[in-house]
């Protein structure tokens, strides 16, 4: 199993930490992982993206231009990454702030209204976990137990009390994700 | 002594919502918007009537987004 994922959105949406939790969780289940962020001025510009690879085998290039899954959280990222999903691959997006919806017909497309859900939950910080939940529902490559371990590894101890809230968000995400176009 | 009246024009698209201008207005006529601009910043707005055109806000605005007008009345 090798899953190549791009997560892309604004800085502040928790894109990088979402990737980090996925990567740590991968380690928890004995997989190879890589987490390759955009950095520097690209980030100052306001966008942030990270390539996460989780694999049973040694990972070759941590930098890719085609992905199994694209998780897209703003319009700029949609413009940049829709075309990078491999045929037959998957695109998950939050429609909030999206003006041009994805139009490819050779991939699976899902929506998750994560921003809305996080607002409903009055827990805007868990936005990225809602998205993660949606992803895991569709590709259960990491089990929840390992996600919990991953969370523990990537959070400082003083934030451990927030773990249940995050797990809750993941569950919410897996519930609200909806198919837009399925092959 | 002649009274002065002023007004400001804010380039709300360029405003970064830093709020540095807010405390320097002597008449407290400016405030941050609830809405955000296309960059995602809450921008500054003239909200009151008593702007004196003192230029304080414009002078401290790091992004130079404020234009000030003043008339003697």
């Amino acid at each position, binding site marked *: 199993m090798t899953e190549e994922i791009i997560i892309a959105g604004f800085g502040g949406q928790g894109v990088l930490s979402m990737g980090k939790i996925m990567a740590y969780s991968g380690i928890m289940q004995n997989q190879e992982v*890589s987490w390759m962020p955009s*950095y*520097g001025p690209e980030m100052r510009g306001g966008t942030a993206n990270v390539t996460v690879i989780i694999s049973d085998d040694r990972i070759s290039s941590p*930098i890719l231009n085609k992905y199994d899954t694209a998780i897209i959280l703003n319009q700029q990222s949609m413009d940049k990454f829709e075309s990078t999903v491999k045929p037959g691959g998957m695109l998950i997006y939050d429609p909030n702030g999206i003006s041009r919806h994805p139009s490819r017909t050779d991939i699976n497309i899902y929506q998750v209204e994560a921003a809305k859900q996080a607002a409903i939950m009055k827990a805007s910080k868990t936005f990225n976990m809602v998205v993660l939940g949606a992803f895991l529902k569709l590709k259960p490559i990491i089990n929840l137990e390992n996600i919990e371990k991953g969370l523990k590894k990537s959070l400082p101890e003083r934030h451990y009390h927030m773990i249940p809230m995050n797990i809750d968000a993941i569950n919410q995400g897996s519930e609200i994700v909806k198919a837009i176009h399925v092959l | 002594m002649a009274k002065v009246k002023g007004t400001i024009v804010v380039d709300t698209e360029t405003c970064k919502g830093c709020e540095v201008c807010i405390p320097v207005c002597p008449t407290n006529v400016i405030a941050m918007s609830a809405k955000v601009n296309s960059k995602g910043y809450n921008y500054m707005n003239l909200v009151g009537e008593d702007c004196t055109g003192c230029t304080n806000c414009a002078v401290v605005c790091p992004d130079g987004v404020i234009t000030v007008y003043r008339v003697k009345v």
Partner: protein
Amino acid sequence: MKELRLMKGNEAMAEAAIRAGFDGYFGYPITPQSEVMEHLQKERPAIRTGMVVLQAESEVASINMVYGGAASGKNVLTSSSSPGISLMQEGISYIAAAELPCLIINVVRGGPGLGDIQAAQSDYFQAVKGGGHGDYRLIVLAPSSVQECSDFVKLALELANKYNNPAMLLSDGAIGQMMEKVELFPQQPRWTLEEIRKKKPWATNGRLFNQERHIVTSLHLIPEKLEAHNNHLQAKYKEIEKNEVRYEEIKCDDAEYIIVAYGLASRTAQKTLQLARAEGIKLGLIRPITLFPFPKIPISTYAEKVKGFLTLEMSAGQMVEDVRLAVNGRVPVEFYGRTGGMLPAPDEVLAVVKNVFKI
């Protein structure tokens, strides 16, 4: 128990420096490697192992602190990125001349000039041929993963101490910034005073009672002496070339074409290999791990068997010269490179392979 962590390359190097038992780090902030010093400071190595960490006023000061520290017999390192490493060239030449073991980390970014802060491999010449003046060599290791960032810090120190020679880790911005799983090696003790006295008897850390005092210098005013010193250095470099070549080869056994690539580019090449093999193209990969000493002999050996080489670099073409020197005209050596922080993609490279070798 294995100690697994998800770490950035930069953090892994810093953590490895503490664990390898380094005595001192001297550096100056620069993107994309500032996490090295930041991780060190966060970890309070003064408490963990007694390691000294000091933010210097510049890279010139850093490298000269390394000079002083290494001359005093301590295991010391510095890190920087391309422009900062350029500023260190005089110091590096002095250190190489004085035969001081130490470690210099270059997390390469796009150049020339201020360039950008993305990953590049355009400091190969500087690292391998000597960016400073005079005939000298660094032992240059090129990690291609975060794991190797950690492992090579330890290895570099060992090699540096074995040959009394400065070693360099030639990493890049992407490896520095990316996170991977690392298995950390256990804490090594810092050398005791006795070990220092024994292993670095030449060090200047206080003349022992009734023993000869020590001098560290790179000055040899008499040309005959300087030539003798140069001969000694060259003999040492030959020895290093004989003993310390490290490389990895993947699927070269049956290969008709071989990509030569190091560091991050070698991972792109690996992926290219997968794509090529899927199409039935017999592509192999030689990944130099030591850039000096360069794996001349393996490349030369394969030059007898394959139809051609492609050198893949994140530069305008630097290592390709060493590949050509190894192949020496027997088969074509082609080059493909991206610069300025642009990263070649596996499919792009495969297309190049097909194109240049008319497959």
